[in-house]
């Protein structure tokens, strides 16, 4: 028999409920408002009272209204049909909601995430008598370009025997395709889909590995200078308008991964719409299929209910872990983790917990840490490897990184791509600060070249600072050239034109090639008659290198342009 209760208080999206029976932490309940059932989650239990966050607008709830507890945690459906979908934070399919409810979201409407009327072509890969355990593959169904694995429920303990398995055929997601039995005679049915509570990591793998392999995002400043590893984690903090979202949109298009989960968490709806409308029309050069077929969007934008925003990042990471279990490389992009942290703060405030810095709860740091901990590379029980890479944006108040969310995040991630207002104002995109950012992972080019290039950037910037005080006249020609070299590296390599067909994405191979050439230029000794001559030379060199960036690597002109650059370099050497 399930537990019920009555509302005794309403404060924003928090209700206090007096209940009879047993109630668990994070258990889901439904507040009744006439015909409507508003989904809620227990966030604290004190005696016979449970405080619950309501995932919907609470307008109209009254003291005495009934609450029904479900006995379950907040779960998501995992199975074929997730790819290409757009869900809200509670895994409600938004297009379906639009079909049923029109222009506006409607509270209390919950639809199954996976359509029950669609069937999938199942091929079993076990036979009766086989021994299996959590996460093992029972069979596969094709989902787009992937072989979607139908797996033994992740929560199952111990070793089970296949008691029954159906033959190949077309089945709906809730169709039972196998039955498993244990030594005691207990029987568990396995369908094409399973459910999993979002706040608990899926751990049905053999071993967790250290992330070592670079994940190519095709953004030069990232892959060369501040790389991300498959199974690694990174964050992009930056003031408003500095380019966090654009950077994530670019990554979601071009990153070299199998699947991208986009978690639009508390940001603008308009930005999701761009992805939603454009991805179906963009072809993924790797697969020849539309980008949408490798993408899932979890969309809980800023005007949608705040508690569901908190849930949305967990929904997203659970879907990512699920596809990882199939031996796939998954990238989760969360924009913005600050909005999720703010959702925690709102709830903490209503619970009247003792606030920490900027009113964030004291446990903020551990919550952020355990979220990023869900990234990783694992070997699965069949020997294949899968990974979840997590990249989160951070939106610090006033653009000041010295605040709780940025600082807690920096403690746990493997790479930091800090966006600077100065760079975005100067339209130097992507506005990742090359002097402040860091990464603990290995990249796609030779490490000693990167170290050298960073040195050039650092010293060039020092000269630039000095020049502001003493003017160009007071700067030594050699220092001036160093400054021009740093500016050159910035202009032709760090900066990248997001809207140019070729320049928007640079493959690892091309980065190695181009970077070697540029480092060669940076290392060259140059002699000029005077500063004007030096400046003019670098103007032309910059222009020529930018043109080079815009040529396809396979094109004949690419080689010609490179010879031209080399010719110019000779010229600089013979100056003076």
């Amino acid at each position, binding site marked *: 028999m399930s537990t019920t209760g009555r509302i005794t208080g309403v404060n924003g999206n928090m209700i206090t409920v007096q209940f009879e029976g047993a109630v668990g932490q994070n258990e889901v309940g439904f507040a009744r408002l006439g015909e409507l059932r508003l989904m809620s989650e227990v966030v604290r239990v004190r005696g016979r009272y449970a405080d619950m966050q309501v995932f919907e607008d609470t307008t109209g709830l009254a003291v005495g209204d009934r609450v029904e507890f479900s006995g379950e945690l907040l779960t998501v459906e995992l199975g074929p049909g997730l790819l290409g979908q757009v869900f809200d934070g509670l895994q409600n399919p938004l*297009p379906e909601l639009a079909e049923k409810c029109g*222009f*506006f*979201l409607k509270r209390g409407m919950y639809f199954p995430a996976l359509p029950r009327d669609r069937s999938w072509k199942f091929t079993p890969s076990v036979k009766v008598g086989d021994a299996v355990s959590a996460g093992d593959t029972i069979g596969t169904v094709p989902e787009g370009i992937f072989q979607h694995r139908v797996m033994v429920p992740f929560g199952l303990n111990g070793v089970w025997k296949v008691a029954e398995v159906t033959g190949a055929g077309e089945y709906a997601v809730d169709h039972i395709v196998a039955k498993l039995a244990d030594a005691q005679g207990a029987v568990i049915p396995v369908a094409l889909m399973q459910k999993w509570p979002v706040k608990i990591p899926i751990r049905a793998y053999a071993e967790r590995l250290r992330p070592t392999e670079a994940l190519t995002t095709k953004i030069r400043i990232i892959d060369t200078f501040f790389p991300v590893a498959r199974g690694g984690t990174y964050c992009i903090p930056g003031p408003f*308008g500095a380019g966090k979202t654009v950077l994530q949109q670019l990554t979601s298009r071009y990153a070299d991964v199998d699947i991208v989960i986009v978690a639009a968490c508390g940001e*603008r709806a308009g930005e999701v*719409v761009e992805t939603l409308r454009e991805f179906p029309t963009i072809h993924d050069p790797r697969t020849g299929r539309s980008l949408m077929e490798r993408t899932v969007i979890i969309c809980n934008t800023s005007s949608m209910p705040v508690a569901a925003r908190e849930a949305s990042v967990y929904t997203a990471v659970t879907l990512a872990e699920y596809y990882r279990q199939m031996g796939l490389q998954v990238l989760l992009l969360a924009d913005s983790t600050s909005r999720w942290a703010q959702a925690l703060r709102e709830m903490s405030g209503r619970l009247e917990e003792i606030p920490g810095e900027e009113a964030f709860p004291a446990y903020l740091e551990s919550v952020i840490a355990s979220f990023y901990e869900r990234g990783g590379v694992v070997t699965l029980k069949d020997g294949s490897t899968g990974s979840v890479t997590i990249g989160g944006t951070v939106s610090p*108040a006033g653009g000041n990184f010295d605040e709780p969310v940025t600082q807690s995040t920096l403690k746990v991630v493997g790479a930091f791509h800090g966006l600077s207002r100065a760079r975005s104002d100067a339209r130097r995109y992507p506005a990742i600060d090359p002097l402040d950012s860091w990464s603990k992972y290995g990249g796609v080019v030779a490490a000693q070249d990167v170290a050298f290039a960073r040195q050039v950037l650092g010293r060039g910037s020092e000269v630039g600072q000095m020049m502001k005080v003493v003017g160009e006249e007071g700067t030594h020609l050699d220092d001036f050239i160093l400054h021009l070299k740093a500016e050159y590296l910035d202009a032709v390599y760090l900066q990248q034109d997001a809207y140019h067909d070729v320049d928007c994405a640079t493959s690892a191979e091309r980065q190695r090639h181009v970077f070697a050439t540029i480092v060669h230029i940076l290392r060259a000794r140059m002699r000029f008659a005077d500063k004007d001559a030096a400046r003019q030379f670098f103007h032309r060199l910059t222009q020529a290198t930018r043109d080079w960036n815009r040529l396809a690597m396979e094109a004949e002109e690419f080689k010609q342009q490179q010879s031209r650059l080399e010719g110019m370099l000779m010229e600089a050497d013979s100056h003076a």
Partner: protein
Amino acid sequence: MHKVYHQIDNIAGNVVNVKAHGIRYRELAEITSRRGTSLAQVIRLQGDSVSLQVFAGARGIATDAHVRFLGHAMQVPFSEALLGRVFTGSAMPRDKGPALKDNFIEIGGPSVNPAKRIIPRRMVRTGIPMIDVFNTLVESQKLPIFARAGEPYNSLLARIALQAEVDVIILGGMGLKHDDYLSFRDTLEEHGALWRAVMFVHTAADPVVECLLVPDICLAVAEQFALANKRVLVLLTDMTNFSDALKEIAITMEQVPSNRGYPGDLYSQLAARYEKAVDFDTAGSITVLAVTTMPGDDVTHPVPDNTGYITEGQFYLRGGRIEPFGSLSRLKQLVNGKTREDHRTIMNSMIQLYAGYRETLEKQSMGFRMSSWDQKLLKYGAMFEKEMMDLSVNVPLEGALDLGWRILAGCFDPVETGIPSKLIEKFWPKQVSGARAEAGRSQA
């Protein structure tokens, strides 16, 4: 029909507490005291204790005031009859017209399903070159004007409202100075635009918390017009007053402030309003232009800061001009590729050169020697500021682009601008005097 309660237990700030049963969250009540009647809204329920936020302010309310619950949340009447009318911050007539009593709609409704939105695609023409050329406003955009108090942001709003080709203008005033309200009204009237405008005006003289209703009322009305296929422009001034009213209530309710006294949900509160801007796939649209005054001229102040994280760009109004740096229309690239082929080039080149001018100014102030290039930039900067940036300049986009070419030609050689030769050939004025004739032709 609704029960009346007589006993107020607690009065703090603008929040009162009464004991009552069966009251719904966010329900409205009328509180009648010796001072008159005010609307109030339920903001917390705890057992039989009901906290009410009093819109007219709790000053003067006594413990024996009458509280009558209305059984519904805040509503406004919606019909075409709203057009041409002026209301208070709680939607009562402020003009001499009749109170409207039909077709009540709820305010603060749910948000639009992201799956029903479309990518914005139409430019809003304002006749202001700093907007049309450099940071094009796009239908369904949400954009604030960041300014210090005292800048002419309200006249800028009024001007955009008049020149934008929209069907309905909705003005929401929050803490608006009475003079500013009158000049809004008179400007619209003079230009014959009053008949397509509705105003909800809370003035600086009205109780502070009453302004909390204004954005929701304006946007609910806007939504209805937009659903009826109208292109609606909503002007909200000043959202900093709105935020300050939120702060006041939060402090009264003893919420832990997150930043300089503002509540932790300021972002969500502002976003809930701004996100009402929308282009419906099969109906009209809502464009939101707001004013956010920056206390201490500081963008990192919580109100402009949170706003910047929500809106699709911002215009900085400084010294009576729209500042080219910092100002940004994030949607401009959706439309400025389809206007005229030289639009993006003029936009980029002129701004780059203007940035050069600013650097030169800095060098000049440090006493460094001015090169001949510096001299050119100085001449350019002065012309740019006078002929483009000045807010009194009023030309259609095409005229502004032609003007841009004339300024460039008056200051530089074509190669110095870095503009591709194809466009130079087509657009560079042959000689400055001949350019005017040409400009006249392309405008016709």
